[in-house]
């Protein structure tokens, strides 16, 4: 029982961390119809930046600075690598995204010299706590709560603010949005800023559970978050969050059995099954192409 509680708790926590990455994939897809392959690497860069900054300044200064720099990174990537290709075929933008992904991995390789970087111990959230008899860390408890709060805030932003209305409009119809006076480039930038911010928060919670960060640290969580977004129906924020929690929980439960080695295989088998059985995912729109 105690083991089960502890597995479920870490599963929910891992799911929450995937959710924070998955939202960035799904929002960018919703607006640009682009799978932003560099998103997982932005997440990794947030981790690397945290390592370097915490070495030279107190944690309380490096966390906000890391959040700001990650947001800036997401913004600059969109402006430099995607915006010039706005009228190009979608395939070109996707290739550009793959290019940015490798660029970030190699920059990280250069910056770290290929040595695994020890992630700093964050105060409080790395501390131990016992829940229902199961020993765990505070991060496990905080993650789902924080995810729910952030998702509620995001839903409020999208449904009840002017910029949120503009985001919904741009996601539906670029040209008509422009005729309303909406500056689509600004809306797209806001989307990348939100996605990068959530990935940065996710990196804090995720890397706390692991001893080190390496240039490929973003690849696996990025892929799994992407599967979560597809599972939930890409373009849908609630879908991505629910998909991420399901994947996180199931993956952790499998890790608790003797089939540990299949935990990653489960995620990707799930991707194949969804694409075959229900390509639009749990909450996806039926027509994924723009009119």
């Amino acid at each position, binding site marked *: 029982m105690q083991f089960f509680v502890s597995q479920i708790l870490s599963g929910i926590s891992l799911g929450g961390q995937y959710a924070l990455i998955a939202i960035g994939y799904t929002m960018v897809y919703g607006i640009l119809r682009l799978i932003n392959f560099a998103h997982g690497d932005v997440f990794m860069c947030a981790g690397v930046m945290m390592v370097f900054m915490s070495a030279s300044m107190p944690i309380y200064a490096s966390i906000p600075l890391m959040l700001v720099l990650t947001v800036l990174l997401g913004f600059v990537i969109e402006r430099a690598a995607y915006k010039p290709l706005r009228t190009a075929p979608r395939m070109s933008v996707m290739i550009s995204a793959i290019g940015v992904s490798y660029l970030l991995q190699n920059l990280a390789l250069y910056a770290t010299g290929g040595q695994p970087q020890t992630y700093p111990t964050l105060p409080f959230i790395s501390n131990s706590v016992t829940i229902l008899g199961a020993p765990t860390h505070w991060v496990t408890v905080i993650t789902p709560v924080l995810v729910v709060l952030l998702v509620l805030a995001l839903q409020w932003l999208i449904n009840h603010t*002017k910029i949120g209305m503009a985001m*919904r409009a741009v996601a539906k119809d670029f040209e*008509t949005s422009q*005729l309303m006076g909406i*500056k689509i480039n600004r809306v797209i930038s806001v989307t990348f800023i939100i996605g990068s911010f959530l990935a940065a928060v996710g990196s804090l919670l995720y890397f706390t559970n692991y001893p080190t960060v390496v240039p490929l640290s973003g690849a696996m969580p990025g892929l799994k978050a992407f599967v979560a977004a597809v599972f939930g129906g890409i373009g849908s924020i609630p879908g991505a969050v629910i998909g991420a929690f399901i994947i996180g929980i199931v993956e952790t439960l499998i890790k608790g059995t003797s089939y540990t080695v299949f935990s990653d295989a489960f995620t990707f088998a799930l991707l194949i099954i969804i694409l075959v059985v229900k390509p639009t995912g749990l909450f996806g729109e039926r027509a994924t192409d723009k009119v």
Partner: protein
Amino acid sequence: MREPILKISDLKVNYGGIEAVKGISFDVPEGEIVTLIGSNGAGKSSTLRTIAGLVKPVSGSVALQGEDITGKDPDAIVARGVTLVPEGRRIFPDMTVLENLKIGAYLRKDDLTDDLDWVFSLFPRLKERSWQAGGTLSGGEQQMLAVGRALMSRPRLLMMDEPSLGLAPLVVRDIFSIIQEINKQGVTILLIEQNANMALKIADIGYVLETGRLILSGTGAELLVNEDIKKAYLGA
């Protein structure tokens, strides 16, 4: 004669690699209803889309009350009081009627109550359905919503691209009488239509476009009785 609200000079526009508009010039006098008629591919839509800023012209100029607005971005054009009701209505199907109207006023920061009342008085049906999703409206109601949405930006010049497209004749008559009503309330109208008969009946001035060139102009009444026009566009 007063200075026209819109002055188009020698406008050339490419569309899909071909020259869709081959150097046209015309004026839209303030307070009038002006219509561009012509068959499919005559360059009507390209002209409106260029004025709205969606397309950049190859050459020529668009002047709004003396100010050159050629090649400005769509938001800058909307901010100056020129709004386009796009072809095919293009309302936002998942947003409510009310949200669709509010997004029409996206650039405005003042109170919208009076304008909502105005739009609802023009289109009482929209008020009844203000909480419904735009996509659930009938074609005619969607066209009313598209016009209402455009009015929310408080345009001085309202441009309409084929408002009668795909609508039943009775509904078309409603839409055209509302266009006249909007015009009476001080909004200049630039209308393009394949339904030349309807358009010329309400227009003060008509221009005839053929394969990217202006071939004829006159008052709506003059063009209605013109033999060539009758033959080519009015099906007589």
